[in-house]
Structure formats: C-alpha cells, structure tokens
C-alpha cells in the first residue's frame, strides 16, 4: 500500500469527505450479497465487507469521485475475492468436473442417434423469454438456480459470466487448465438452463420433474 502525497490528500478531503459509516448503510447489502454469492459463507462474507470498507477508509484519499462510490468499493471487494480465490486455486478437485456428467449423459442418451438430444431432455420453447429479465421473480429463480451449483462451478461461472473476467485470468487465478474451465462452464450453463426451464419457464405448465 502506498500513501498519496499529503498535498493531494487534503485537496481530495476538501472536495468530498465520504463517511465510511454511511457506506455500511448505503452499500452494505450490495457488498454482502456480492461476497456471499461468491464465498457462500455468511461469516466470511461479512469479513470481506469489513475488509473492503477498511481498505476504502485507508484509501479514501485516492478515491476522487471518478466512479460512483459503489463501483469503487465493489472494485476493492472484487480484488480481495480474487486474492482469496488465488490461495484456494490449487484445491480444484475432479469431483467438480464430475458435476452434471450423469445428467449430460442422460440428456444425450439416444439409441437411434447417439449423442443427439434425448426427447425428454431436449430444451423446450421458453415462452415470454424476452420479458423475463424485467421480472423480479425471474431474478429470484436465477439466483436460486445459480445457488444450486457446486461451490467451484458457481465460482468460475460468476467470475466468467457475471464479472466478465477473461478465461485466461480465471485459469491463472484458480490455477486450472483452459480445458477444465471450459468443462466447468459448459456444465454450469447446462445445469442453469435446465433449472431455469423447470422453475421459471415451465413453472405453470405442471410438467416439471
């Protein structure tokens, strides 16, 4: 951590003096939700929120209002989570790659045409898919479906699809091969798609599993 020059600091101070305690009220839920969906442990998530706000407090002089407070704090949290994942990276186990393997087998179990969709598992048409993203309930289902993914599968999915971190960077951070990453992302998407189909798009037709 480097300190900014005293001159700059006092200039920034004079411009705006953010109140760190107010951060808790204004951004606490946002940061907590962000951390919790990635570490899946409320105590750890709370620690991350606290560490983020402390780092924000210490680095306040460097924040000059170029981005919104939330974007700035979110960036600090994101870096803290990446550091955390970096230390966990080496633990990636093969069971993660097994996730959904059976389901994938069943999805493409087709005696007449091997590796083509099994009729019972083929994607069905999603009605009103275009409106889904405007519905608050859709986001609840989306959240609960992504919450069902195993920890590490969910982690790579969130890093890739939500945080839009490059595949290369994810591989380096988590210390996994590109191929493993692809398998994990592919299975995550398959599982999420299936879950959304059952719990959102077909929820009212009664032919859920």
């Amino acid at each position: 951590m480097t300190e900014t020059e005293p001159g700059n600091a006092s200039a920034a101070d004079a411009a705006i003096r953010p109140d760190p305690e107010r951060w808790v009220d204004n951004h606490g839920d946002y940061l907590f939700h962000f951390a919790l969906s990635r570490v899946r442990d409320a105590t750890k998530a709370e620690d991350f929120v606290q560490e983020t706000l402390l780092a924000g407090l210490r680095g306040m002089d460097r924040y000059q209002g170029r981005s919104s407070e939330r974007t700035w704090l979110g960036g600090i949290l994101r870096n803290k989570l990446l550091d955390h994942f970096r230390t966990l990276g080496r633990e990636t186990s093969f069971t993660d790659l097994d996730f959904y393997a059976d389901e994938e087998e069943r999805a493409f179990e087709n005696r007449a045409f091997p590796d083509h969709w099994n009729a019972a598992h083929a994607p069905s048409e999603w009605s009103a898919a275009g409106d889904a993203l405007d519905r608050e309930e859709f986001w609840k289902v989306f959240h609960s479906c992504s919450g069902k993914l195993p920890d590490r599968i969910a982690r790579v999915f969130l890093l890739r699809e939500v945080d839009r971190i490059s595949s290369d960077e994810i591989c380096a951070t988590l210390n996994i091969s590109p191929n493993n990453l692809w398998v994990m992302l592919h299975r995550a998407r398959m599982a999420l798609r299936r879950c959304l189909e059952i719990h959102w798009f077909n929820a009212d037709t009664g032919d859920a599993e």
Partner: protein
Amino acid sequence: MKRFVSRILRPFVLLLAAGTPTCRRVVQQASQRFDSVTGTSIPLRTRAHLLICSACARYLRQLELIHEASGKLAQKDTSLSKLPDASRTRIKARLRCEKS
C-alpha cells in the same frame, strides 16, 4: 396433434442432422463460444445442424439469454441477501475505531 406429427417427423429430421456435428458437440461449442478469445463465429456445419435441429437452436438462444442475464446481474442494485443488523453494528464500530 402437433406432438404426434413431430414424433413422426423426428427420425427424418435426425437423419438429416446425422451429417452434421452431434447435438452434444454443438452444445459444447455453443458454450465455448462465450469463453474463447478466438473464433466466435459458428462453423458452417454447425449452422446446418441448427437449421434442422430446433432443440439445439433453442439451446443456443437460451444460452444467450443466460449470458445476458448474468451480465445484468452485476449491475442490478437489488440485493437478495441483506447484511444482518448485528454485522452492520460490528462493522461500523470497527470503522469508527480505525478512523480515530
């Protein structure tokens, strides 16, 4: 009725599809397109598959929707999980202590 017709037609459709990549392969490729730095265009043989296989075509559309939704998730302000009040108080106290 619709279901009956599609059941009759299905083998023919799948026979046509047999000359193109398998559904399993198409679905894998579809996922990789979101992640690889090179080649986001769909190969010709896969395009042919998508023309005759509505299930895979749907799968691709649905993956796009999931991709779009995930991207929006980061911008969404509503927090589904709330920071507990006790944690709030604890963190505020810790910040006060750090400030002074």
